[in-house]
C-alpha cells in the first residue's frame, strides 16, 4: 500500500469531539456535525425498537389464522404504527442523519457541514415531529395504514389521523434541512484537490438522496396538509361525498412516497460501495457508472409513482407508461450490482463484519430488486398488488437493503465514531443470525402472496398458516439477531478495545485523523492528491485477461 498521509495534530492530544465538552447542555446545543449525528443515532435507535415491538406484535398475531391475539382494531393500529415509525422516523433519517451527518464532512475534508445551526435545528424538528407522533400513538393511535388512503383517513377513521399527520408534516422539514445542508456542503466545502470524481461513492449517493429529499418532501407535506384540511374543515378534496377525488390522494402520496424508497436505499448503496471497495482493497469497478446510476435513480424515481395505481382503474395507457418507466429505473440498480460484483474480481477480500453485511446486501438487494420487476409487470401486478408478495418485496428492499447497509456502515465506522472496536466474533455471528432470520421471515411471504394472501389482514384462511408460522419463526430469529449488536455496541463504548486512527488500514480521508476525531476533524486542511479507493499507485493498474485490449486506462 502507498504510505498514508495523516492529518493528526503535531502533539498527540487526548481531546476529541466526545470529551471536548461535558454536560447535557454541551450536547443539546452542539453545532458539531459528529455530535448531532450521535443525537440522531440515539433517537432513531429508540424509534427502531418501538417499530420493532410493533413488528413483534404483528408476527405474534399472524401465528394463528383466527386473529386471537389482538383485536382487529388494535391490529390495524399496530401495523399502521409499525409502518409510520419505521419509515418516517427510522429508515428515512437512518443513514443520512447519522452516518451521513458524521461522514459527509469528514470524507470531503471539511470541518463541518455548511450550516451547523440548521443541522442542529433539523434534529430538533425531527424530535418535535417524533414527540407529536408518539403523543398520537399514546393518545389512541392511528389505524389508516401508513399510506393514509382517502376517504378512509379523511372521513371514516376514528383515530388520531391529524395528530400523526402533523408529526409526519413536521418531521419532513428535518429531512429537507438535512438534504439542503448536504448539497451545499458537497458543492462548496470539498478540500483542495477533492474533485467530483475523487469523491467517495458514499458522497455521490448522499448527493442524489439529498436531491430527492428537497424536491420530494414538500409534496408529502402538501398532501398531509390537504388531508388535514378535509378531515378538519370538510373541504372537499379527496372524499367524493364532498366532491373530491380519492385517487388524487394516491397520486400525491406516491409522488413522494415512491422516491422516498430511494431516500432509504440510495444511502445504503453508498455505504455498500464503501464496504465492497475498502474490504477488498480495490477501486470500484466502473466508478463513474456507479456514481451516475445514483443520480439516474434519483431522477427516474420521480417518474414511476403510477405503478402503485395499476389496479385503481387508472387508464391502461398511463399504466403502460408507468410500467415502462419502472422497468427503466431498475437498470441503474442492476448496473450497481454488476459493478460491485466485478470489483471483487482479483481483489483481497476480508471477512470482517461490515463486509459480511455488504455481501449480504448485494444478495438481498438482488432478490428485492428483481421481485420489484414482478410488480412493475402490469399483468402480474394486478394479481399481486396488496398481497404479501408486496410486503415481502419491500421488506427485502428496506430491511435487506437499507437496514443491512445501515448496520454494515455502523460496524464499519464504529471505531471512528466511538473510538472503540466492537467485538468482531459477536459481530460476525449476529450478521449471520440476522441474514438467516431475515430470509426465513420474508421468503415465505412471496409464496403466500402469489397464493393470494392479502396484506393488512388480521385473520386469514387457514391454508396460509404454514407460511405465517415460518415468518414468525424467522422474525424471532431476526429480532434476537438485532439485540446482539444493540448490546455489544453499548458494551463496547466502555469496554471495547481502543481503536487506532485507521484500524482497517484504508486510504479514505475519514481514516486519516484520530479516532474519535477532534471537533475540527482535521488538524490541518487535507490536500487531496489521490483518487477514491486508491490502494495502489495508478501506474500499477492492471489490464485484465481476455478483456485486455478493450479495457481503458483510468
Amino acid at each position, binding site marked *: 500500500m502507498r504510505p498514508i498521509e495523516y492529518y493528526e495534530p503535531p502533539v498527540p492530544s487526548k481531546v476529541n469531539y466526545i470529551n471536548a465538552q461535558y454536560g447535557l447542555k454541551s450536547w443539546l446545543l452542539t453545532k458539531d456535525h459528529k455530535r448531532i449525528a450521535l443525537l440522531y443515532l440515539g433517537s432513531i435507535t429508540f424509534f427502531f425498537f418501538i417499530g420493532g415491538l410493533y413488528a413483534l406484535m404483528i408476527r405474534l398475531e399472524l401465528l394463528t389464522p383466527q386473529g386471537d391475539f389482538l383485536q382487529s382494531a388494535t391490529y390495524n393500529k399496530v401495523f399502521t404504527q409499525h409502518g409510520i415509525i419505521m419509515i418516517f422516523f427510522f429508515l428515512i433519517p437512518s443513514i443520512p442523519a447519522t452516518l451521513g451527518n458524521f461522514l459527509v464532512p469528514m470524507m470531503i475534508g471539511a470541518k463541518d457541514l455548511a450550516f451547523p445551526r440548521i443541522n442542529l435545528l433539523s434534529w430538533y424538528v425531527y424530535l418535535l415531529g417524533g414527540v407529536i407522533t408518539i403523543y398520537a400513538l399514546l393518545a389512541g393511535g392511528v389505524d389508516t395504514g401508513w399510506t393514509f388512503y382517502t376517504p378512509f383517513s379523511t372521513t371514516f377513521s376514528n383515530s388520531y389521523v391529524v395528530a400523526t399527520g402533523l408529526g409526519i408534516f413536521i418531521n419532513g422539514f428535518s429531512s429537507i434541512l438535512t438534504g439542503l445542508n448536504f448539497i451545499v456542503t458537497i458543492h462548496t466545502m470539498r478540500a483542495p484537490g477533492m474533485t467530483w470524481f475523487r469523491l467517495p461513492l458514499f458522497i455521490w449517493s448522499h448527493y442524489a438522496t439529498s436531491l430527492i429529499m428537497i424536491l420530494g418532501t414538500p409534496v408529502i407535506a402538501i398532501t398531509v396538509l390537504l388531508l388535514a384540511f378535509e378531515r378538519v374543515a370538510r373541504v372537499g378534496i379527496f372524499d367524493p361525498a364532498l366532491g373530491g377525488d380519492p385517487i388524487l390522494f394516491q397520486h400525491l402520496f406516491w409522488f413522494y412516497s415512491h422516491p422516498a424508497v430511494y431516500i432509504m436505499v440510495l444511502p445504503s448503496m453508498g455505504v455498500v460501495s464503501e464496504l465492497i471497495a475498502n474490504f477488498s482493497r480495490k477501486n470500484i469497478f466502473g466508478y463513474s457508472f456507479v456514481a451516475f446510476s445514483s443520480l439516474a435513480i434519483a431522477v427516474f424515481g420521480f417518474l414511476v409513482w403510477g405503478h402503485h395505481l395499476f389496479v385503481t382503474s387508472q387508464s391502461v395507457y398511463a399504466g403502460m407508461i408507468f410500467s415502462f418507466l419502472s422497468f427503466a429505473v431498475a437498470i441503474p440498480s442492476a448496473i450497481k450490482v454488476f459493478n460491485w460484483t466485478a470489483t471483487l474480481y482479483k481483489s483481497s*477480500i476480508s471477512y470482517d463484519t461490515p463486509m459480511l453485511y455488504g455481501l449480504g446486501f448485494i444478495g438481498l438487494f438482488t432478490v428485492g430488486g428483481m421481485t420489484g420487476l414482478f410488480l412493475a409487470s402490469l*399483468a402480474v401486478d394486478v394479481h399481486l398488488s396488496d398481497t404479501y408478495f408486496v410486503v415481502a418485496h419491500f421488506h427485502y428492499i428496506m430491511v435487506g437493503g437499507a437496514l443491512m447497509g445501515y448496520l454494515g456502515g455502523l460496524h464499519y465506522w464504529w471505531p471512528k465514531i466511538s473510538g472503540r472496536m466492537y467485538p468482531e466474533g459477536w459481530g460476525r455471528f449476529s450478521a449471520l443470525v440476522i441474514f438467516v432470520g431475515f430470509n426465513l421471515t420474508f421468503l415465505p411471504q412471496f409464496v403466500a402472496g402469489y397464493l393470494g394472501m392479502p396484506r393488512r389482514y388480521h385473520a386469514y384462511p387457514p391454508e396460509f398458516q*404454514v407460511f405465517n408460522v415460518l415468518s414468525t419463526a424467522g422474525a424471532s430469529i431476526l429480532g434476537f439477531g438485532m439485540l446482539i449488536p444493540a448490546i455489544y455496541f453499548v458494551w463496547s463504548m466502555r469496554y471495547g478495545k481502543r481503536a487506532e486512527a485507521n484500524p482497517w488500514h484504508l486510504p479514505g480521508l475519514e481514516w486519516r485523523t484520530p479516532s474519535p476525531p477532534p471537533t475540527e476533524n482535521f488538524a490541518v486542511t487535507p490536500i487531496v492528491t489521490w483518487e477514491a479507493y486508491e490502494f495502489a499507485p495508478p501506474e500499477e493498474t492492471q489490464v*485484465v485477461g481476455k478483456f485486455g485490449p478493450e479495457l481503458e486506462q483510468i
Partner: protein
Amino acid sequence: MQSWIPLVPDSASTLSWKVDALYFYLSGVTLFFSLLISAVLIFFVIRYRRRTPYEIPRPIAGSHKLETLWTIIPFVIAMTMFGWGAQVYFQQYKPPANAIEVYVVGKQWMWKLQHATGQREINQLHIPVGRKIKLIMTSEDVIHDFFVPAFRTKMDVVPGKYTTMWFEATTPGTYHLFCAEYCGMNHSGMTGSIVVMEPREFDNWLSGNAASGTPASQGQQLFQSLGCASCHGQNGEGGRGPTLAGVFGKKTQLQTGESVTVDEGYVRESILNPQAKLVAGFGAIMPTFQGQVREDQLMQLVAFIKSLPAGGQTEAPPTTATPAPRQAASPTQNVK
C-alpha cells in the same frame, strides 16, 4: 387438499394461466440472476480471500464494453417483461362485449351483489363456467378492492365512480373473494366466495332464487317514483329533459360543444350532479338527487336506462342474462 405446499393458487379463469406463465418467466429470470450473482459472489469471496494481512491487489480499470453489455442485456430482458405484462394487462382490463353484468356495491365490511336477472347476494357470487362476467362496481364508503386469486384479477372499488372488471371462469368450484384494499376495522372480514357452477346448475340456482325484480325493472319503478318520467318521458323518450332511450353506449353532444360517451359513469354523474355535463339544447333545470338515492338504486336506474330501446317503445326490459332460465319457483333469498 394437496399435501405439498402449492406454488400457485387454484386456476379457474381464462386469465389464470396467462398470468401464471408470465409469473413463471419472471421467476425463472429472477432465480437465474439471483443464483448467478450469488454464485459469482461466493466464488470470488473464496477465491480472492485475503491471504496475507498486507497484500494489495492491483487496481483494475473499468470497462465501457462490459458496462454497455450489462446495461443492454438487463434492459432487453426488462422490455420482454414489460411487453408481455402490458399485453396480458390489456386483456385483464378490456371490458368484453356481451358479458353477463353483475352489479357490485362494496361497503364496510360486506359485498352486496345483484345479478342482471335480479337475484341479490351478499358476500357470495354464483356464476356459470364459460360465460364472461362483467362486474360494475362502486362503494358506499371507502375504497375496497374485489380480488379473486383463482381468477388472477382484482380491481379497486372506488366511491364516487364505477369501476369494472371481468372474468370467465373455467372450472366449477368455490373460490376465495377478498377485499384487497385496506378499508378499516373489519377489513379482513370482508371476504366471501365465488361459486362457479356448470351452466345447468347455474340455471337451477337462478330459478331457485326468485328475484323481486330485475335491476332494470326496479330502476323503472324508481324512475317513476322519483319523478324522472315527468321530464324524460315515461319510457325515456324525452321531453323537457333529453332523450334517454337508445342513447346508452353512444356519443352525445354537450352544451360546451364537447361530446361524451353515455356510459354508466356518465349516467350516475348526471343523476347526482346534473349540471356537470349538460346535453346540448337543454337548460340547467334538473335538481340533484345526491343523498336521495343509494348506490344500489343508482345502479338500478342505470340498468333501466341501459335497457331502454331506441324510439321509446314500451318494451319490457330483458329479465334474463343466460339462455332460458326457468321461472322462479321459491321466494327464498340466498342471503346468508
